[in-house]
């Protein structure tokens, strides 16, 4: 009987091993008039979630559709495009990438016939580390990545107001989560796609973070006249709670790391420090906290180690 069960597993495995067969079951949520979000899980990358831990979105214009981020895989991008076709007969005419992290741009292959724009820094980062990010996601996600390759953006996004498919948009370059974040603001509905400059109810990630610049960007976001906010990860917001939570966590994190370095702690000791109660509801908190220490602590500790006399 065990042998039969094994054979059944192998067959099931073969059926799901092809990326095209990984069903993301993407369901567009209308967040404003003509504006939709595809809300991912607040998890880490796993084989089960196929890398769908990210929020992407699209805006339906008069004669075209604007897509914000293409997701973690070719299969995601393909299914995202199919989900858009289920909402509107309009064709996708523009893709914007918010930044160069693998959950946001690896669906680009599904939009090979569409202009894909990102900031200069994001396009440079894709060329420099796109393949390494891709390899890592294959390792973490496996079969759902099948057929996925890095496809670069075709243009640098010019900051400021643009009209695409009859829709007035503002492209807002920023930095902090990466060196080249891009936010997309829909003027008609005052919907702001923040990319990963805002995380909500999920611990934020810092592999390319610059915390002072990120905090300055959050202050700038607070001054924007948005009504709806689609964060990079976590539920859609209609207030400033996501900005406040992201700022609170970043301020605590930088303070905690600076304090630990001043006390002479080494990285594994810092990883074991308690995290304040108010953050414990954030998804994947401990994992992301440990990762952040690996990214950020070396700079803090160097500040505490003065040059020794020979």
């Amino acid at each position, binding site marked *: 009987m065990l042998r039969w069960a094994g054979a059944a597993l192998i067959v099931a495995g073969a059926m799901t091993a092809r990326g095209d067969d990984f069903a993301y079951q993407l369901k567009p949520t209308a967040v404003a008039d003509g504006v939709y979000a595809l809300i991912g899980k607040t998890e880490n990358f796993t084989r089960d979630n196929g890398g769908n831990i990210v929020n992407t979105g699209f805006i339906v214009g008069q004669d075209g559709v604007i897509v914000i981020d293409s997701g973690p895989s070719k299969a995601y991008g393909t299914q995202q495009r199919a989900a858009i076709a289920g909402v509107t007969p309009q064709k996708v005419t523009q893709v914007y990438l918010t930044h160069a992290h693998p959950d946001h741009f690896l669906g680009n292959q599904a939009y090979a016939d569409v202009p894909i724009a990102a900031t200069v820094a994001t396009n440079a980062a894709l060329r420099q580390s796109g393949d390494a990010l891709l390899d890592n996601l294959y390792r973490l996600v496996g079969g759902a990545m099948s057929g996925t390759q890095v496809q670069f953006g075709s243009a640098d996004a010019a900051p400021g107001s643009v009209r695409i498919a009859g829709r007035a948009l503002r492209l807002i370059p920023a930095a902090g989560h990466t060196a080249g974040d891009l936010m997309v603001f829909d003027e008609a509905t005052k919907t702001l796609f923040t990319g990963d400059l805002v995380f909500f109810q999920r611990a934020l990630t810092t592999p390319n973070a610059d915390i002072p610049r990120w905090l300055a960007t959050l202050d700038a976001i607070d001054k924007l006249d948005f009504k709806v906010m689609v964060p990079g990860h976590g539920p859609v917001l209609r207030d400033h709670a996501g900005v406040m939570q992201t700022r609170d966590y970043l301020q605590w994190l930088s303070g905690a790391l600076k304090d630990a370095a001043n006390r002479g702690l*080494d990285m594994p*000791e810092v*990883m074991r420090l308690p995290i304040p109660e108010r953050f414990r509801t954030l998804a994947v908190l401990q994992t992301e906290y*440990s990762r952040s220490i690996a990214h950020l602590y070396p700079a803090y*500790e160097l500040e505490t*180690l*003065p040059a*020794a006399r020979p």
Partner: protein
Amino acid sequence: MNEVAGRAAQRVARMIGAAACLLSGFAALAAERPVDPLNSPGWSTIHGRYFKDQTVVFDERVKVMAPSAAENPLDVPVQIDADGLADVEQVLVVADLNPIQKILSYEPTRALPSLSFRFKVEQSTPIRAAMRTKDGVWHVGGVWLSAAGGGCTTPSHGSADPLWQTHLNEVSGRLWPKADSNTQRLRLRVVHPMDTGLASGIPAFYIDRLVISDAQGEQIARLNTYEPISENPVLSFDLKGSGPVRITGGDIQGNKIAAEIRP
């Protein structure tokens, strides 16, 4: 297996064990290779290379603390400690499945058997600390580290950036006195590319020794480092007593390290 069969099997195993004791005698048994709690394919090689004919026990007091997954395979942080284990004379840290297994050896002459460092990992592997006490017994603890790898065969940043050439072996560091335990934490950073020799066209070039001495020149601790230690090593020691320390050492090409650190 049901419970009765399980108990029967345990009983048989005990009987075989008892017979083995009688046949081989305790001295020979003591030098046998104990079963690896980490179930690593590399343990028999590690045992043969470093612990052959010596007494080895797996001891939960020997702690290896590292993240479960390597975020950066070039720079995996590890802390070892053995709270409650007295008279540790020698410490050996190895990664079973790294192409170069030996990471460091440490003599905590007048220091606690604790140390933090970072290393380069090539693939998922156990990290083990073995601590030899005065009675000659090696006490071993360890953890598995999951890693995408490539850390040992990737060129160092230094190999592409000549900055290290003008700063080679420069030391920065600081002492943090801990009055309650009459110890002091020493943290050090030394500028060095720590090339493993496994990246194409870049020969091995690494710091192989650091000695920490007191103001009278007496050794407080001695550390021998090997290829897997991360570039620009950052190390944390817990030294007994207090007061200024002198660091001396060098790399495999004869470049010297010398620094003085005051509280």
